[in-house]
Each structure stands twice: as structure tokens, then as C-alpha cells.
């Protein structure tokens, strides 16, 4: 664990306490319908510790952690712990369910499409070469180890935040089954215990960032958003979003600006949102067929 001091704030609110901190490159909040500051502080500590733990363990950008070791294994078999195995297996199922569209090994392709405005569309030869470094099917996964080709790498960025939200929510429920809490890590949200009057959650308007386009009342459940809103390039009048189809090497065409999905847990909500983005023009159809509540902006 990091020795840096915890930077958290806990503020009283008429309905309880608001805890906030920053983790996983996102503002994180905990809304607690609790009148005891002591419990609120313990809850905030748990959320902070869990968010930081998952960030430190699974961030692609932290040297020496499990993901870094895998990405630097140079083709060697790497032993992994049970939690990492479970995340890999979940990623594998998502890969299969999405017919290879959701792929945690797609990061070299994403890196090729740099959305900082300074680069145009990559050359087809570059895309072809990079495609060779991508493909979950080439990863050998066992119950305690991973082996992947030396030029491949993985990134849990598409799952990690939602996973941290659910894990935190679950820990809080186990300990305080009677206190309503809303866990919000950068817009990925879970509220595991029914709140009779619900929590008011604003959904960002992708046409007008930092403004709420819709106000949702969540009594229980989870919510996750996937979007193209802040990262895209325009070349010759054509907008390329940051969601890349690993099967073609190109950004998905006609993908929504953002998709918000309500589901029983945050991991599921996040994955359905991402998968619907990968469906491009068929995002709404896909979500309709899943029988979940959703909000799509185009």
C-alpha cells in the first residue's frame, strides 16, 4: 500500500455525508445516508482503500504491478492470483459474448489512433501490422497463470473502474446492510441498498459537457456510461471516435456519443454500454434486446 497520505474529504449534508477523493484518474464520490460521522468516515476509508488498491494492482501505467509484469513477460508464462484470474476470465467471456469486439488486448490499436488532434488517420500498413499484436484468442489462460505472445499487452481499463465500484459497494453492504450508499467513481455508479426516496443522478449531456441532460432517480442498482464525447478526431470532416473495432482496426462508425445503462451491477452495466457502443448504428437495438434501461445520446 502506498505511504502517501490519504487525500479525502468528508462533509456533512442534510441527508448524511458526502465523501470524495480522487482515484483511477477520476473524481470519486461516496454519498452516504448515514447520520453518524464515524460510520461515514469508515465507509469513506473502505471506498478509498478499495479504489486505490484496484488502481495500483490493475493500472497499465503503474510499474511493477501485475499488469505491468504481464505486459513485460516477453512470452513467458506468468503466475497470477485468484482475483486476476477472475478478471481475465470475465474479460474472456466478454470477448466471446461480443464476438471479439471487446478485447482487453486491443491497446496497441488504440495507441495507434491517437486522439490528441496532432495525428491523422493511420496508414493501412500500420493498422495491419498492429492488428497482429491484438487478439485475446492468442492468450493462454489457466486457473493460475497467463501466457501471451511477447508483442502483446493487456489493459483492464475497460473493466477496472466498474469492478472497483461493485467491490466497494459490496464491502459496504456486507458491513452496513441497512445504510443506503451511492458509490460514484467517475460516473460509474452503484447503489446496492434500496433508498426509498432514491438518489438523484445527473447524466451528462454530451452535447454540452458538464451539464446534466437528464436526471435519473436510482433507488437501487448500478449505472455506467461509455462514450466518445471527449476523445475523437475529425479528418476530412469525418469524426472518428475513440472506440476501436479490434476486428477491423478502425473506429466504430456511427457509434453513439454516449450510452448510459442501468443494470443490477456496475460491471454488467459498463460492459453492456461498451458493447452497445461497439454495435455502432445498432446500439439502441442491441440495448432494447437486452431488456435494460438505458439512455443513448447521438
Amino acid at each position, binding site marked *: 500500500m502506498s505511504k502517501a497520505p490519504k487525500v479525502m*474529504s468528508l462533509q456533512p449534508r442534510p441527508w448524511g455525508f458526502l465523501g470524495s477523493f480522487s482515484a483511477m484518474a477520476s473524481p470519486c464520490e461516496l454519498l452516504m445516508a448515514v447520520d453518524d460521522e*464515524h460510520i461515514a468516515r469508515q465507509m469513506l476509508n473502505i471506498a478509498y482503500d478499495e479504489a486505490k488498491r484496484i488502481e495500483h494492482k490493475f493500472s497499465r501505467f503503474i510499474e511493477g504491478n501485475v499488469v505491468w509484469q504481464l505486459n513485460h513477460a516477453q512470452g513467458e508464462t506468468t503466475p497470477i492470483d485468484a482475483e486476476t484470474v477472475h478478471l481475465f476470465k470475465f474479460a474472456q467471456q466478454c470477448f466471446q459474448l461480443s464476438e471479439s469486439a471487446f478485447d482487453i488486448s486491443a491497446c496497441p490499436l488504440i495507441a495507434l489512433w491517437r486522439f490528441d488532434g496532432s495525428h491523422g488517420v493511420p496508414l493501412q500498413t500500420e493498422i495491419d501490422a498492429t492488428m497482429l499484436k491484438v487478439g485475446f484468442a492468442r492468450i493462454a489462460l489457466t486457473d493460475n497463470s497467463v501466457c501471451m505472445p511477447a508483442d502483446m499487452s493487456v489493459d483492464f481499463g475497460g473493466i477496472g473502474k466498474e469492478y472497483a465500484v461493485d467491490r466497494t459497494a459490496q464491502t459496504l453492504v456486507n458491513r452496513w446492510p*441497512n*445504510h443506503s450508499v451511492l458509490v460514484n467513481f467517475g460516473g460509474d455508479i452503484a447503489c446496492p441498498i434500496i433508498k426509498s426516496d432514491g438518489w438523484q443522478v445527473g447524466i451528462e449531456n454530451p452535447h454540452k459537457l458538464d451539464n446534466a441532460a437528464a436526471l435519473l432517480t436510482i433507488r437501487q442498482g448500478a449505472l455506467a456510461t461509455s462514450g466518445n464525447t471527449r476523445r475523437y478526431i475529425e479528418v476530412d470532416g469525418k469524426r472518428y471516435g475513440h472506440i476501436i473495432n479490434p476486428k477491423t482496426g478502425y473506429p466504430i462508425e456511427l457509434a453513439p456519443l454516449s450510452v448510459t445503462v442501468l443494470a443490477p*451491477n456496475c*460491471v*454488467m452495466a459498463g*460492459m453492456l454500454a461498451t458493447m452497445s457502443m461497439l454495435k455502432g448504428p445498432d446500439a439502441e437495438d442491441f440495448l432494447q434486446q*437486452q431488456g435494460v434501461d438505458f439512455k443513448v445520446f447521438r
Partner: protein
Amino acid sequence: MQLTSKQSIASALALASCSLLSQQANAAEPIPANDDWKVDAAIMYYGEQDRVQATEAIGNVQKAFGDTSLLDMKIVVDSLTGASASGAVAQAESQTFTRPSGDGQYTVAAGDTPLDDTFHDTRVQLSANWQEVINQDWTGNIGVYGSKEFDYLSMGINGGLERSFNKNNTTLSLSGAFTNDVVDPVGGRPVAMSEMVFRGNYDNDADYQAAFDQTRLAGDDTKQTSDIMFGVTQIINRNWLMQANYGLSSVSGYMTDPYKILSEVDINGVTQSYRYENRPDSRLKHSVFLLTKGALDSGVVDFSYRYSTDDWEIQSHTLETHYRYNFSPTMYAQLHLRYYQQQAAEFYQPFLMSGDAIPEYASADYRIGDMTAYTIGLKFGQHLSGGHELSYRIEYYQQNPENNGTEIPGQLQNYDLFPSVKAIVAQVSYSF
């Protein structure tokens, strides 16, 4: 029913996500869920230099019933010993006083502030409060209170309502309380402004007792207190809130301190006799309280001001601040500063002048005289595992009584008629 391939994605994801999350739940250590009970226990010591010493044990239990109901029960047991100022003035010669019970005497050395050292008592106080969140906007509470010490019984009820507005950013509250007290002083209630009698001035016990009885009223007496308070709490922004309260308190009944006396002195400042004090039997008090409280990066700070005035003409101003600093998520320290200033009651006088007409009301109790007081306190708290908290508090308190403008005759000028009272408060608390 045959699921379509697209429908099966949601169910397969639900299954996959549950398997991902549930394995973690099993791996997590089981933590006992005892959150709806909260117990605080504390031991407090209060000691005035050379005067009253008190030891207090405090137990508080809170039990939540769901998210809407909260029961709070408290017991306080304290034991007081030591001496308190009787109201008489120091003299160049030793002084002898009749004990409040009439049974026996005590002597105070020359030059010393007369203290009544018979003061010792044990008090038990019980209270219970029920709080109920009625709906999103309304919260109510009711409570009962009782305390008993040797010569005093107090019983009360209270209740309040809170209403939230403006997306819960504004809260209005109205609360009221009624208390009935029964005062049954040792040796009976003194006759107002009567003169203290001494065994030495009578030939036999029977004559003395008859004279003493002349200074006493039979039976106990009562006092009723009604309080109403109106409050507004307003959230200013993410970090600050403001609170304002107005309180009205009406007391009627026996408010005289049966153990306090006044010296009656001549123009040389020499005591001629002692008289038992007398206070009016009604008092109406208004108070205004303003508080602002804010969250800082690593702590909490509050400032408050209270103004209070009543028809005894006691006016007071209190300035107070707490600053809490979190060294780490498990350790904090809190600084407490308080300044208090009070203007004397209209019937306060440090002594009576012999020859003057005996006033209807008079008291030399420094606690209702001109006074300033301050408190400096420090508290350390430590969060332990399992949600327990241990805290230590130490405070220094000093009262500085002042002359309300009375001219000091003769020998009294040689003595400090308004001595400071210095006290230490120490407390250890444990919450679990």
C-alpha cells in the same frame, strides 16, 4: 423459452459479473455487522483549585431501528465533593458559620474567602430520546429526562420537529422542553433575607433550635422551566454551513440558592451578621446563537457566538471555536477556545451594608455577578480497528469574577473579594 442470441448476452453477462464479484465477496474477511448499536463510555474529572471536585461516569447507547428511527439513552453518574463559596466576604479575623442543616458550625481562617465545605453529593441522571424520520422532509423527536441528587429532583420532557426545504439545503427546527424540579434543601429552605443564628448566642439547644427554625420554611418547593427554540440551518456551499437559533426560556418557582448567604458589613468593612439570599421567582431569558462550520482539507473548524439576556438583567456573550485537524484518517487533534463575558444580575451585590434597608432580592453568588471566563482545551482522538474510537480531552477553565462597581469599605479593601476560580477538566472516552 428459447432465448435469442442477443438476449443471452445480458443474462450471460449477469452470470459472468456475478461470478466475478461473488468470488471476491467470499474472499473478503467477514466483518461483524454491529453498526446499529453505538456505545460511548466516558470518565470525566472536573476539579477546581481548592474547591469543588467532581468525577463523572457517562454512558450513552444509541440504537438505530432501520434508517428512520433512532433511540438514544444516556446515564450520567457523578460525585461531587469539596467546597464552594458561600457568598460571605473575607475578614481580618476568623469567621464561624452555622452549617446549612443547622447542625454544627464551621470556621474559616482570617483572610480566607469563606467556603462551605459541606458540599458533597451524588447525582444520577437518566435520559432517553427517540428520533423518527417521518418522511423526506420531516424529522421529529421526543425525549424524557430525570435526575436525582440528595436535595434535588428534576424531571422533564422535550420534543422537536425539523423540516427540510430547498433540496435539503435549508432546515428549520422548532423544539420545546418542560422541566419540573423539586428542591428540598438540607435543613429546609431559609426564610428570605433572614439572619443566620448561632448556637453560641443561646443558652440551650432548644432555644437555639427554636431560633434556627424561625429562619426556615417547612417542606420543599418547586421550579418549572419551559423552553422554546427556533432554529435555521443553511448550507452555504460544499464546505460551509450556517446555523442560527433563537431560544426563549421561562422559569418560575424557587430559584434561590438555599446554601448562599451575604455578609452584612459596616462602614469599616467589618461583618455584623450574615443573611440568607433571596432571588425572584420568575425569570424570562432570550438567547440568540450563531454558528458557522466548515470542512477544511484535513479538518473541520467552527465558530459560534451566543448572546443571552434576561429580566434579571444578566447579559452574556460567548465566543467559541473548535478546530479539528486530522493527522491521518485514524488520528485527530482538536483545539477548543471559549471566551465568556457576563454582566451581573440587578440584585447581585457582593455584600450588604448594615443600616441600609434590607432589599427584597439580593445574592452575593459570584456566578450571577460580573464575570469573564475562558476555556482552553485540547482533545486527541484515535480511531481503532472495528470502528472503535478512543479520545482524551483536557481543558483549563478560569472564571474571573469582577466588581460590579460596588465601593469597597474599610478592611475589605485588603482582600480579594472576587477571587478567580481555576479548574481542570480531564476526560477519557471510548466509543464502540
